């Protein structure tokens, strides 16, 4: 790897402007009272002091994207016959995301195992993932809702990121973590950052120091299966759930989607859009049968998927990056940490079962 670089805070905007010449650049900024990853605009202030309200999930997995365009036309040989042409719409261009947090980007590593699986590679995801670089900011201080340390991560975890930027006095130390990352660090605005390496270590250690001991989640996969049929457990956990999609749409590792068609006249598009397992329609079958008919069934799936079903088929990796957005942004304060711990500590009633 190339040596680490240093960027003065005062040069940050100029550097992003440079990057924006050849890439689409996303950076967090205030939209109303929320901090959202938006196309970089040198005239608008960016907001990177704290983790953004929304993770930059949409840069690789858009809220809605075109999969296939189709057109109808009349067969000139047989006018009663309608011909259909379907064309794939693959994403183009390169994107750089600045100001993501370690948890935000680590979410994509959980996508990768599913979307880049050998025999079922998702060409849309792959195109974006390969052409998107993440310049991730190491966290200086975790928030109350942060729990990355529960799920094998840390405030300076670079997994999935191309560059890790660590804020130090008056600037950032930039460490490349991929070839893509190295290529981003060629600007003349950057100077050698080797001499800051101890400061960087301090920042990382200091941040990690704020996080108290993490509970042992190794039993979570089995314990969640043990309470699978205990609907009382899940009804209690889900009692206050509103069945909205805020937790899933704000989650860096939630990757479910819907596919729907829209037509206008003789043209149409097949879209892929975010969908969420909290919604009653998600598993609703045409017959009216729904395998997850209540919010308790649905919350069970969300927690179960992250802490049990996904690890079971992906080398024990928990599909949660601990960003805490589902806790912080839940309109009713559901705390996934509590549910997982309750499942782990749950003792089956004696005599029952």
């Amino acid at each position: 790897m190339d040596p680490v670089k240093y960027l003065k805070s005062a040069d940050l905007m100029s550097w992003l402007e440079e990057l924006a010449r050849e890439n689409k650049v996303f950076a967090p900024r205030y939209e109303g009272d929320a901090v959202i990853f938006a196309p970089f605009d040198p005239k608008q202030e960016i907001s990177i002091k704290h983790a953004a309200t929304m993770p930059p999930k949409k840069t690789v997995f858009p809220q809605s994207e075109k999969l296939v365009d189709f057109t109808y036309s009349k067969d000139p040989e047989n006018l009663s016959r309608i011909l259909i042409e379907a064309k794939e719409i693959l994403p183009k261009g390169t994107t750089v995301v600045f100001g993501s947090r370690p948890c935000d980007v680590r979410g994509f590593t959980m996508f990768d195992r599913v979307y880049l699986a050998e025999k079922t590679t998702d060409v849309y995801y792959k195109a974006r993932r390969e052409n998107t670089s993440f310049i991730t900011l190491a966290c200086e201080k975790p928030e109350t809702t942060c729990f990355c340390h529960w799920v094998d991560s840390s405030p300076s975890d670079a997994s999935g990121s191309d560059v890790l930027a660590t804020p130090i006095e008056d600037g950032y130390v930039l460490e490349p973590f991929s070839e893509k990352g190295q290529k981003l660090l060629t600007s003349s605005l950057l100077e050698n950052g080797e001499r800051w390496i101890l400061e960087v270590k301090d920042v990382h250690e200091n941040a990690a120091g704020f996080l108290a001991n993490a509970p042992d989640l190794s039993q979570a996969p089995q314990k969640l299966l043990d309470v699978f049929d205990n609907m009382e457990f899940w009804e209690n956990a889900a009692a206050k759930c509103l069945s909205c999609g805020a937790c899933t749409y704000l989650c860096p590792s939630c990757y479910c989607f819907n596919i729907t068609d829209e037509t206008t006249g003789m043209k149409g598009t097949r879209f892929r859009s975010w969908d969420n397992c909290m919604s009653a329609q998600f598993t609703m079958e045409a017959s009216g049968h729904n395998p997850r008919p209540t919010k308790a069934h649905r919350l069970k799936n969300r927690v179960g998927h992250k802490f049990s079903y996904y690890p079971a088929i992906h080398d024990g990796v928990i599909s949660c990056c601990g960003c805490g957005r589902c806790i912080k942004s839940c309109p009713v304060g559901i705390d996934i940490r509590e549910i997982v711990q309750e499942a782990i500590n749950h003792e089956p009633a004696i005599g029952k079962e």
Partner: protein
Amino acid sequence: MKDKNHYLPEMATINEVIQETHNIMTFRVTFNDPQVMENFTFQPGQVGQLSSFGTGEATFVINSPPTRKDYLQFSVMRTGEVTSKLHSLSEGDQIGVRAPLGNFFPYEDMKGKDIVFIGGGIGMAPLRPLMLYMLDNRKDYGKITLLYGARSPVDMAFNYELQSWLEREDLETHLTIDAKYEGWQHTVGLIPNVLLDIAPSSENCVAVTCGPPIMIKFTLQALEKLGFKDEQIVTTLEKRMKCGVGICGRCNIGSSYVCMDGPVFTAAQLKELPNEL
């Protein structure tokens, strides 16, 4: 190497439409590209996503056997938006097909065994390709018994071939309907009860069943009474699916994805899964 786009359907033409019952239609389709048709391979039990562009996709079993490749056959029961749209299609219409998806019946493991097919209503469709495949490779299998039931004679699909099934000497066919019906010359009774009457021996036998959830529930009980072990019972599941390749997240039962790890499961495998059918 360029990755395959799993979401891009292959264009196909409907060559024949059969009105099976008041709410079931069968479509026989061929891919527009002869090369694709030529190279297309699948196994009995695998499914495909049929696309009506502008409406959407839905999942159906390829119910023609791989041994008969003039066309791919799908039987569609009208239940929702996509199936209603498909029912409006006729010969010559274009549809998209994404296939084959999912796993298939373990027909290799069934070699040398007796087979009992138990199909209820549209649940006969997934059994058809396996049964025809076995009939096309008859010497590989022992006694083959079919119990096919529907609510009434008019709800019975594949009417046009039932007679030939009844006449075959290498296939024991039982047809049943739920309640008495004028002119019906076969059995009357619910599938699980009729199954108990036929009482196939569980010795060296595999039961393959598909049908509505309530029928499956009681059929499994009947099979158990007849001495069938969970490993000897094979079924195929239906779930709402979108991607068909294990990504979109709606057909999972615990860690298993019906679109990838299924739709075919043995009763023993189902018992290992969380209870969320």
